[in-house]
């Protein structure tokens, strides 16, 4: 058994294929906010006004920064790996919506989680999961401290929940500006993301 499986007492894990079949069969309640994270079905916490506002602002800012040829998704599923289908708050993927009518995108150029109560999990578990999948640019919009945490350079780390973590972490204050890896000409004021 690898490290992940020793979690808690051991619950039944689901593959992404099983998860998608459960959705097709209508097993879940309508509107249930669920993510498949490393085989575990996780329930998202209900979002407050600040959380929702931050998602809208971030999506708008990233749309402007990336421009044509990119598609900004909010809380849409990502086919990350065989046992993960997270729904990050904002994800920027190449192309347009029609390209993903048959299968979810799997490798966003930029992935953003807006974190309030979920800050610890977004940093540690989601960060490790996204690093394992090789997502190059992961942002945690930290509403608690009103900063943007930027994670880059996935690297193996046996101590991390999924065996990987981001080697680089930079923290940007509200007054700073940030440039996405995949949109090198853009410069986004962090204040445009914060609620």
């Amino acid at each position, binding site marked *: 058994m690898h490290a992940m499986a020793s*979690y*808690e*007492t051991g*619950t*039944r894990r*689901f593959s992404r294929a*099983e998860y998608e079949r459960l959705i097709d069969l209508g097993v879940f309640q309508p509107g249930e906010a*669920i993510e498949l994270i490393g085989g575990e079905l*996780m329930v998202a916490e209900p979002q407050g006004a600040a959380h929702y506002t931050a998602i809208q602002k971030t999506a708008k800012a990233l749309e402007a920064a990336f421009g044509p040829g990119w598609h900004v998704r909010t809380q849409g599923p990502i086919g990350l790996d065989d046992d993960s289908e997270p729904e990050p708050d904002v994800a920027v993927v190449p192309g347009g919506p029609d390209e993903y009518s048959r299968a979810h995108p799997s490798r966003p150029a930029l992935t953003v989680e807006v974190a309030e109560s979920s800050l610890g999990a977004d940093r540690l578990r989601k960060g490790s999961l996204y690093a394992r999948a090789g997502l190059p640019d992961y942002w945690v919009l930290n509403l608690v401290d009103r900063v943007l945490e930027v994670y880059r350079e996935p690297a193996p780390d046996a101590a991390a929940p999924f065996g990987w973590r981001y080697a680089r972490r930079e923290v940007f204050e509200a007054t700073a500006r940030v440039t996405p890896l995949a949109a090198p000409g853009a410069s986004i004021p962090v204040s445009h993301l914060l609620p």
Partner: protein
Amino acid sequence: MKQAERPGLRRWSRREYERLIDHGFLDEDDPIELLDGLLLVKEPQHSPHRTAVLLVAKAVERAFGEGWFVQTQSPIILDDRSEPEPDVCVVRGSPRDYVATHPTRPALIVEVAQSGLHLARGRKAAAYARARIADYWIVNLVDRVLEVHREPARPGPARRHWGYAAIDTLGADATITPLAAPSAAIRVAELLP
């Protein structure tokens, strides 16, 4: 508990659990039980575990006698999101009384635990206490003792606070009398593999 309660894990209702079985996600041979909405993986059935289950079943069958039956590793219903399969439980009546639905309130539940000891004392004890199971025993294969859990109580407000107020640990030389079979006496040595 090392990992906090993990409130984020999605909980399954019994009805959903049954749909998982209907759709073939789980089958009856899967070592899974639904406890408090979680699909828990059961302890592997190594030989000492299996032997202890058989010894316990035999001993409690004799102790309870007529008017009761003993089921092993079969489902019971505790609440809307718990359908565990305890190693041994003693149920009033006869098997035919439960053709339409699983038993809900065994007079005695026994779990045999080695690697699952933490689970048996923690999450399982909480679920059984919450269902007001009056007599819950753990055959602890690690220390070769019997842990007798009685007096379900909730000292705090949360569901997870449920537990047993009276816990006795009995060595192989001791004898135990089930609450619902007051004239019986079982030697703990009879239960140990």
